[in-house]
């Protein structure tokens, strides 16, 4: 069996076309037969070719008649509901492929944005090349992550009777939590039930206005985002309580 990619166009070479016809006709009839057997359903196929005056049929002339009369018995609307020809069939497939593509691109953009966010966390990337839409999406992504963190912290705090296996002593963390953890300020522009959906539509109106909330905020004290310092990812304004945690033996830079 050849596995060359066949160009989907009328085969102009007569002998090549006839050969292809013979093979594919056989294959098609086989597929109809298999479908009928595997799924236990009625089916028929009629094929007119320039090579024969009589049509090729499956399962047989009688069988076709039977299926056709069954077909004709059902209401006309039902008959035509799922009826397609090449044009409509191709249009359907195009629509489906477009949808898949749109989704894939959206997912890819979110993944890229995540990388951008990580890069910025360690000061390894600038934001100079980003336009307003990028900044908006980046901000939204940061917010999503903050939400996730808050949720997790909430969960851990609630179950903090059990010792935390992966961080410092409970007491230290709890005190750090109460002083350092700001109240999760609700973002008015993002919906309530967003937490369960991390795959929101980037184009939604709410998100577009998200950036407006961020802009013109009174800048806090100078933000030290050391780009050269590979030692610590975050700026200088770390909470003093947190500093105590830096000495935690568990806190490796790299896993």
């Amino acid at each position, binding site marked *: 069996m050849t596995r060359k990619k066949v160009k989907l166009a009328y085969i102009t070479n007569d002998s090549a076309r006839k050969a292809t016809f013979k093979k594919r006709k056989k294959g098609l009839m086989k597929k109809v037969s298999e479908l009928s057997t595997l799924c236990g359903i009625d089916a028929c196929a*009629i094929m007119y070719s320039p090579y024969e005056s009589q049509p090729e049929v499956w399962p047989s002339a009688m069988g076709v008649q039977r299926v056709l009369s069954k077909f004709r018995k059902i209401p006309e609307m039902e008959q035509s509901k799922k*009826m397609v020809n090449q044009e409509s069939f191709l249009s359907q497939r195009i629509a489906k492929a477009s949808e898949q593509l*749109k989704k894939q691109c959206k997912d890819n953009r979110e993944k890229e944005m995540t990388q951008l966010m990580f890069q910025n966390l360690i000061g390894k990337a*600038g934001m100079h090349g980003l336009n307003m839409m990028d900044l908006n999406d980046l901000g939204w992504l*940061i917010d999503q992550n903050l939400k996730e963190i808050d949720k997790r912290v909430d969960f851990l705090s609630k179950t903090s009777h059990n010792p935390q296996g992966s961080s410092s002593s409970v007491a230290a963390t709890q005190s750090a939590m109460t002083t350092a953890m*700001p109240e999760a300020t609700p973002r008015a522009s993002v919906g309530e039930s967003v937490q369960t959906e991390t795959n929101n539509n980037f184009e939604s109106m709410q998100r577009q206005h998200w950036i407006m909330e961020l802009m013109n905020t009174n800048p806090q004290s100078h933000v030290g985002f050391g780009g050269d310092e590979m030692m610590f990812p975050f700026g200088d304004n770390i909470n003093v309580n947190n500093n105590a945690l830096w000495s935690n033996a568990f806190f490796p830079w790299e896993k």
Partner: protein
Amino acid sequence: MVKNNSIPSRWKIEMKKIAKKTNLQVTFSKRRSGLFKKASELCTLCGVDVAIIVFSPAGKVFSFGHPHVESTIDRFLTRNPSIHNLNAHCNVVEAHRDANIRELNARLAQLVDILEVEKRKGQALDEVREAGRKQWWWQATINELGLSELQQLRNALEELKINVGKQADLLQAAVETRNCWPFLAPNGVETSGLGSEGNEVNASSGITQMYTFDPNLYFGF
């Protein structure tokens, strides 16, 4: 040969009615779609007329025909060769239809190609994410982090958020300046970005080239 690894397509399947109902329905759906696809290809490649009628397990009927299901059925039922000649399609209509189909086939092929590219890109991005997740603690899944780490991360993200806001302010100001003084090009502020302008932009030194898919190029039909 390019093989679709996500669906095992070389199973040997027994030729009898599928026992499990859910499998049967899935199989019907997939095979019916594939059957119509094959029929469509045959029509394009060899210029044949077909009609295929299929009843679903639920009793619904699907049909595919070229040029139309109805005309081909009628042709079969009347069995009169002269009818065929009567049916001899007006050449102009046929030519127009063929051209349309050619165009649709081309468009579909193009979409499928692009989709493939984007899928591979997605896989590559997944790999990068996974590598980073294992290597840097702050790239780990949030559920993997302890309280102290979460707090650190939170602080850093808050800072970053502020920076994003600042950058947005900067951009906005630049836009306004440019609007007032169109001949002035502020230094260092680019607006092409990652956005839907479709340009490839090196957003920073460390990031791989990113480009964004421009939907208008492909969805406008």
